[in-house]
């Protein structure tokens, strides 16, 4: 495989291709002739979804080569491409992957075709615009993971915002307008502050002729910011990422956006877009400002917020009457684990955080898909309107139970690996916080098991529930890959961990090394 990939020059073109394929796809879909609704299903231009699906499959196949072409032993950027973009401002189109980005890219390209299948029959109007927006959204998400230039990163970061705004606002639920505006404004304010920080950094690195420089690598190598300035800049990046994650006090946009978004929107929001925040911490906030991030007070504040997020998210999820909202709040809890793992900063905890990021993408994505499927049949998401449907839809019930168990973190499923690594990793540095966080796993079991009990197993006392059709072949087909990955990552995560470990190690060395250096110079002074 590696030889084959080398023979086609794979590394030289794969990253630009990943960004260009969705763009071409979006244009193709918009140019499709509009067809009126088909009589049997009432879906406008049904060809659009087919085209979108195959473009996403192509995207996945193209990206999959990186699994083999990526060399885990090499901690440099791989498959890098570096082109001039706006020379007057020192902006370059510069992309590349490391182990962390690799996994995030594969997660994205893996989820997207499934998200299309999830919207197959639920999106009925304006399908061309919908799928074109999904494709453009993908460019933004991949661009964030690939960017090696802060300007490019910012552009890609904002590129995600508009398609999601329209997806929620046009195809969303009843309170979609409120939810989409809230989502937009919550995300945009800290992004703009981050923009100021990015400009500041670019100017800090400017050449003798006064041209700014936004290169990530140069920023890492020459970064010598005064401590106060670094703290302010860190705060700007922190806010942008913390809202996206979302961390505890900044999470209020999440339940609205996730609940009102159409199924695919929720899957992408939870499965992929939340990872932008944690990825941002790993790629930018920590390595660029190690002094600020390792400042004891700052670190404690973030860790405590993370633990509050774990417990609070779980407790709020427990009392939700709406299944989708329950899953949304469970994200707050899971992402708390990620933050705990990142800021505990041991190799294990960071790797665990990365695993949780992947697992959460898969398990929560699957949960949202399942919620969407049952909603399409019964048009309600309230837990109380179900009960005992395991007898009516056995296949659905089995898969829902399995996915819930993986989300809880049952050993043998993917959820276990990540949270376990985070907990043992953070126990080494922050035992008290790790113990408190561990209770979050118990709460997770409570809210999810209780929820599936109320949906699937209580007495079948509502007549409307007696005749729900079970999963059809399309739905089964889209869930099976997710189930396979859940088991695979639960039983044998080593290939994934092996690819991410060197990058995690480099990150930790960089942060701790720089902190140690800073301490040394302080002592010397």
């Amino acid at each position, binding site marked *: 495989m590696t030889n084959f990939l080398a023979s086609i020059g794979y590394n030289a073109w794969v990253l630009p291709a990943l960004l260009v394929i969705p763009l071409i796809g979006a244009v193709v879909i918009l140019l499709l002739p509009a067809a009126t609704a088909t009589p049997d299903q009432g879906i406008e231009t049904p060809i659009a979804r087919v085209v979108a699906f195959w473009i996403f499959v192509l995207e996945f196949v193209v990206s999959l080569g990186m699994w083999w072409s990526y060399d885990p032993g090499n901690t440099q950027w791989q498959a890098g491409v570096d082109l001039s973009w706006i020379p*007057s401002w020192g902006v370059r189109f510069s992309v590349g992957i490391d182990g962390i980005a690799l996994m995030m890219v594969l997660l994205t390209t893996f989820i997207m075709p499934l998200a299309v299948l999830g919207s197959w029959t639920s999106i009925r109007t304006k399908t061309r615009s919908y799928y074109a927006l999904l494709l453009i959204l993908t460019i933004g998400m991949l661009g964030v993971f690939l960017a090696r230039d802060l300007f490019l990163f910012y552009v890609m970061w904002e590129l995600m915002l*508009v398609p999601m705004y329209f997806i929620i606002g046009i195809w969303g639920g009843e309170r979609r307008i409120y939810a989409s505006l809230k989502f937009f*404004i919550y995300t945009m304010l800290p992004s703009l502050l981050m923009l*100021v920080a990015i400009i500041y950094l670019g100017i800090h690195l400017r050449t003798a002729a006064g041209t700014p420089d936004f290169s990530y690598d140069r920023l890492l190598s020459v970064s010598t910011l005064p401590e106060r300035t670094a703290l302010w800049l860190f705060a700007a990046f922190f806010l942008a990422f913390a809202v996206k994650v979302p961390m505890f006090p900044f999470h209020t946009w999440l339940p609205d956006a996730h609940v009102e978004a159409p199924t695919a929107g929720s899957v992408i929001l939870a499965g992929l877009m939340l990872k932008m925040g944690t990825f941002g911490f790993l790629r930018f906030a920590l390595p660029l400002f190690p002094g600020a991030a390792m400042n004891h007070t700052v670190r404690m504040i973030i860790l405590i917020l993370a633990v509050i997020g774990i417990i609070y998210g779980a407790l709020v999820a427990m009392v939700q009457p709406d299944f989708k909202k329950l899953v949304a709040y469970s994200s707050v809890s899971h992402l708390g684990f990620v933050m705990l793992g990142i800021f505990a900063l041991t190799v294990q905890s960071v790797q665990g955080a990365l695993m949780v990021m992947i697992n959460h993408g898969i398990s929560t994505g699957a949960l949202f898909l399942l919620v969407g499927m049952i909603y399409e049949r019964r048009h309600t998401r309230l837990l109380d309107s179900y009960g005992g449907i395991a007898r009516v839809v056995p296949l659905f019930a089995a898969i829902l139970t399995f996915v819930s168990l993986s989300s809880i973190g049952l050993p043998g499923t993917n959820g276990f690996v990540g949270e376990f690594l985070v907990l043992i990793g953070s126990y080494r540095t922050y035992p008290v916080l790790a113990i408190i966080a561990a209770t979050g796993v118990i709460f997770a079991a409570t809210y999810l098991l209780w929820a599936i009990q109320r949906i699937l197993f209580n007495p079948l006392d509502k007549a409307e529930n007696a005749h729900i059709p079970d999963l059809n072949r399309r739905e089964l087909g889209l869930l099976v890959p997710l189930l396979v990955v859940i088991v695979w990552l639960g039983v044998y995560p080593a290939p994934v961990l092996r690819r991410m470990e060197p990058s995690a190690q480099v990150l930790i060395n960089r942060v701790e090394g720089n902190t140690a250096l800073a301490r040394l110079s302080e002592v010397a002074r």
Partner: protein
Amino acid sequence: VNFDLNLPAQLSGALGPDLLLIGGAMILLLWSAWRPESDEHQRNIGILSIALCIVTMVAVGYYAYTGYTANVGAIAVDNFRWAADEIFLIATIGTIAMSLDYYAREGITAGEAHVLLLLATSGMMILAAARDLIIVFLGIEMMSIAVYVLVGINRRTERSAEGAIKYFLLGAFSSAFLLYGIALVYGATGETNFARVYGNIDKLHLEHSALLLVGVAMLLVGFGFKVAAAPFHMWAPDVYEGAPTPITAYMAAAVKAAAFAAFFRLFLEAFPTILTTWHLAVWWLAAITMIVGNVIALAQRDIKRLLAYSSIAHAGYILVAVVVGTKLGSSAFLFYLFAYTMATLGAFAVVVALGTRGENQMQVEGYAGLWTVCPGLAVAMAVFMLALLGFPIFGGIGFFAKWYVLQAALQSPFPQTRLAIVLVVTSLVSSGYYLYVVMVMFMKPRDSAAPRPLHASAWTRTVVWGSAAVILIFGVFPDAIVAFTRRSTPTLTTDVVPEPRSPALQRTAATTPQPVIAVRSGQSTAGH
């Protein structure tokens, strides 16, 4: 070629494009009076006016390309002037193109309206060239008087007449301020030429002369009115609402840009040495304008008033570039003007395309569900709104404009960090009303009783799609424009910007101080 402005023949050569436009306008004026008023005649005059503007654009481009220079005199021959001229001419072409349809719809058959527009534009071109206080006044009046008439061109409607009288009274008022300022500055320095005013302030130690400072304050108020900066913005929403929509677009885009161009050159060429006195005033003017414009716009439900307040807010952003005042600031200033002009023109063109005769219904709510009936116009409008908001890629060049102003503000020798934060936060506020328009168009259901908008004619659509294309294409590849604006600083602008409120100023003896980038990089402010 280096023009010697003391020789009449060479002065005319330096004014070539301006004379071309004025001469052409005169001929068109005669021809429009030659035939009886009719819609067809109006249309012909309009199309010829567009052709004249294009010819003038080519002439301006030629002058910029050959790199003519001139000795220091009453007018400037530099790329700043040519860049500003191109912006005015683009705005004029857009305005005439939309008004062709608009006048036909409203039953305005006066072909002179187009000629007046050309005369106003030639006033603007003179403003951009002016390097003498008298020429500034001449340009302002040429521009303003023509626009007073244009605001009232639809004389059958009460609102248009009301807007015209308001604009006339307040415009006359602000001209009086300007004239007072000019007189006082002349009284203090004995000169009206920018370079000599600068020299005399230096030579006679006028930094604390009350006469001069009052004069500068008067000039500031006068320009504050012309660019509609808060707190001198009160006239703008009413006038913008009352004026025929194409004229509103013209006022929001071109008139504002011209006043800014003169403002920028005057203050940075004539008064750099007394910067400490006016700098803080402009700082506050910028901050207040951004806050007032954006916050009040949130409450607007009429599309024209909303865009009026948006244009006030943008005056604030542009003032940030004036505050920065370095070469980089000047480049950012021109870039911003260009981006703002394109987005504003496009937005008003959509308003024209969706308007109905009499323009009684201009509520944003009237656009509910527009996406389902006119997807093209709705998408274009969304692009313009996002461009005004300063959003990357979807808002195209609008993002780069804000980026550039921010970069100039933070990279100035005295970083305007606080002003940059105000800009960023008020931009966020602006998302409240720009997104409101987008939300109404895309997310509200169409009222079943609402009539389907008439198919907009080719001219208006050309303006819509032309500006959208410019915004989006340069929104991915802005480098050509950045490089051009970077070569287009006013010749006399210096990078010597003393620290605001610092007691002593580094006085430079020469009229053309040296660029100081090299010196400055040693004492870099970004913090080493």
